């Protein structure tokens, strides 16, 4: 049911792309304009969409893909350096929402014209539109939208007396359940973006915000993490680290490490993106994990901070942006619009485990089949809490990481205040980071 990660499919795509290229190259003297699309690494899904849209364009344009680094900050660094150099080789980019504001503010993104904008935002999940917007203009086209769920072993949850299928759970209850069953909660406490994502989700879920006025200039940005919500978030992290329910490697564990931990014996709960479902299914198919384990996995919305309040799960994903220095912006915009149709989003979702940003895609039978938790994902996306949508998000995130890491040293009385001081001073240009 799940396309294998390493598969012959990829080489077929390559062949198809090559054939498409040869075919279109034969078409005319100069050939159609080439849209170079910088993609984040995946299992070949974006390459396939590129081939499809090249074909659908019938000679209007052709899309070739180029690969970005693995993690979002690496992608940002690489794109930022080249855009700052006004590199015309980049036409279309798969952008992590965290850096859209920064790129748009620097004037590196082409505004999406109204007709395309109306098309691609119609019905899309609000969060996906919000992160793709800067100064009231749509600067990127929502493609896929990511959020985290609580994944758990049904058997252990039952033992612990949790009815996760029907009842929302709080962090407190989750920690107690893990302790009572002597098991772990697999989280990502590594000093990377993943940790900032977790902190932000906790603060948002507690009803707070890390930054009050994300669209302000650097020296006017107000941090509001030193608040009750910030302290509650810190308490939860402190508790998890202190009680050891995050496991011994919490401070170096990323999402992938969390998944490996969950796949092992010692962990029964995990907060993670839906890619894990695709990955675990793949591992079962390869015989590295058992069917029994797969059947035992349940899913639920992100835990709440306070009982009776909805959680605000993390938001991630990818939007497509057109470089301001592209020689073929019109073709790139058309390509983007082609790539993000709900049908393509559904196909991409089913193949890669990266959820769609358009609700229609969730009704696709392939998606429903491959992701029985599709409805929970959509619901989580609608509740998701955004990371601060500011051009200085990199400073905010690194400042959070610097002050909140390692998790074991988090102190509700001190850490949020430290973060506020550090980030404020960094944004005022008074400190290093």
């Amino acid at each position: 049911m799940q396309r294998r990660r390493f598969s012959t499919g990829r080489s077929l795509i390559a062949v198809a792309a090559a054939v498409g290229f040869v075919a279109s190259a034969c078409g005319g003297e100069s050939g159609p304009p080439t849209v170079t699309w910088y993609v984040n690494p995946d299992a070949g899904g974006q390459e396939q969409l590129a081939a499809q849209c090249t074909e659908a364009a019938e000679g209007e344009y052709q899309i070739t893909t180029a690969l970005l680094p693995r993690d979002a900050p690496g992608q940002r660094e690489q794109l930022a350096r080249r855009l700052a150099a006004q590199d015309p080789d980049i036409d279309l980019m798969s952008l992590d929402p965290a850096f859209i504001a920064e790129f748009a503010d620097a004037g590196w993104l082409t505004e999406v014209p109204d007709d395309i904008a109306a098309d691609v935002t119609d019905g899309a999940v609000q969060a996906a539109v919000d992160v793709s917007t800067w100064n009231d203009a749509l600067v990127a086209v929502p493609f896929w939208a990511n959020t985290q769920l609580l994944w758990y072993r049904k058997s252990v949850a039952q033992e612990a007396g949790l009815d996760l299928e029907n009842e929302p759970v709080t962090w407190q209850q989750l920690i107690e359940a893990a302790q009572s069953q002597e098991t772990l909660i697999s989280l990502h406490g590594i000093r990377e973006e993943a940790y900032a994502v977790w902190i932000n989700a906790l603060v948002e879920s507690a009803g707070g915000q890390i930054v009050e006025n994300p669209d302000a200039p650097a020296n006017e940005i107000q941090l509001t993490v030193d608040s009750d919500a910030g302290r509650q978030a810190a308490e939860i992290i402190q508790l998890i680290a202190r009680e050891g329910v995050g496991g011994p490697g919490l401070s170096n564990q990323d999402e992938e490490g969390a998944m490996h931990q969950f796949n092992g014996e010692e962990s029964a709960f995990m907060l993670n993106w839906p890619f894990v479902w695709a990955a675990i299914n793949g591992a079962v198919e390869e015989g590295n994990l058992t069917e029994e384990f797969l059947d035992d996995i349940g899913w639920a919305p992100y835990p709440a901070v306070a009982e009776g309040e909805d959680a605000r799960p993390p938001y991630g994903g990818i939007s497509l942006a057109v470089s301001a220095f592209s020689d073929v912006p019109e073709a790139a915009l058309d390509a983007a619009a082609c790539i993000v149709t709900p049908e393509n989003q559904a196909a991409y979702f089913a193949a890669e485990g990266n959820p769609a940003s358009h609700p229609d895609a969730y009704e696709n039978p392939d998606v429903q089949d491959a992701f029985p938790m599709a409805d929970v994902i959509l619901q989580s996306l609608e509740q998701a809490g955004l990371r601060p949508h500011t051009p200085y998000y990199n400073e905010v995130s690194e400042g959070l990481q610097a002050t909140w890491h390692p998790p074991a040293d988090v102190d509700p009385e001190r850490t949020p205040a430290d973060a506020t001081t550090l980030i404020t001073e960094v944004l005022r240009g008074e400190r290093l980071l």
Partner: protein
Amino acid sequence: MSATKVEEPTRTTAPEQRSERARAERRLGWWLAGPAFVVLLAVTAYPILLAVYESLFKYRLTDPDAREFVGLRNYAIILTDPVWWRAIGVTLLVVVVTVAIELVLGFALAMVMHRALRVLRPAIRTAILIPYAIITVVSAFAWLYAFQLDSGFVNSWFSWVPGITPETDWFGSFGPAITVIMLSEIWKTTPFISLLLLAGLSQVPDDLHEAATVDGATWWQRLYKVTIPNMKAAVMVALLFRALDAFRIFDNVFIMTSGAHGTEVVSFLAYRQTISRLEIGLGSAVSVLVFLSVIVISLTIIRLFNVDLARARGEV
């Protein structure tokens, strides 16, 4: 190093007819050596001057319009920031610990190479050269994976050591993390030191040893009284080279911790300001400060230990 204390070799004043030839030789000398000299300056002096210039601005790549001249303000920010001093502290710790261990270990290796059975020498030399020639990043990955929780064998091999359990997270706090970083650094660079020391060892005249042996000196006495004093120059060169090389440490930190748990070193700090944060002004200022630190360290070592590089090269 301008501090080398050797006067130009004095030549006997040339007769009239030779001066023409001397001038031609001088010209040819500069024609031949000039290109290399120009390249050396172009790839270092020019960039560092550029860095000095850029360090005087507040300049962020994502916001080029806001570029403004701020004088020495970037330096003031850095020098009053504990982040800088901490990075300096960590870097110096790495320098002192690794260089100390490497000198001892490198000396032992040099002795082994110097005195091993003739048939074993090529094998030992080859083995020693492998860490030297291997890419630092590869070494960093090897040590990282050896200690890392989800792939490493170290915890299971050394679980009998008190304090090491299968769950010991070596990259979970400063002490163990910096230890592994230094292990990789030491493994990779000790061979270089040992080769420098080997060169020094082979300069110690054999008859001195024999004389000492005849006088009834023990092995240790010979080592301390004869060998080491006679290779002081080589030791100092090794010390200077390695100390400054260790001060530049970057690859191991980047691969293993990315500066987490307080393991940030000065090179990494500079890299992050410029390359990650795109703060060209601030990053340039850090770079200039790192450069100045290297100068201070070289002068200190030269003064402190009275290193005479020219003498070390046997030019006197």
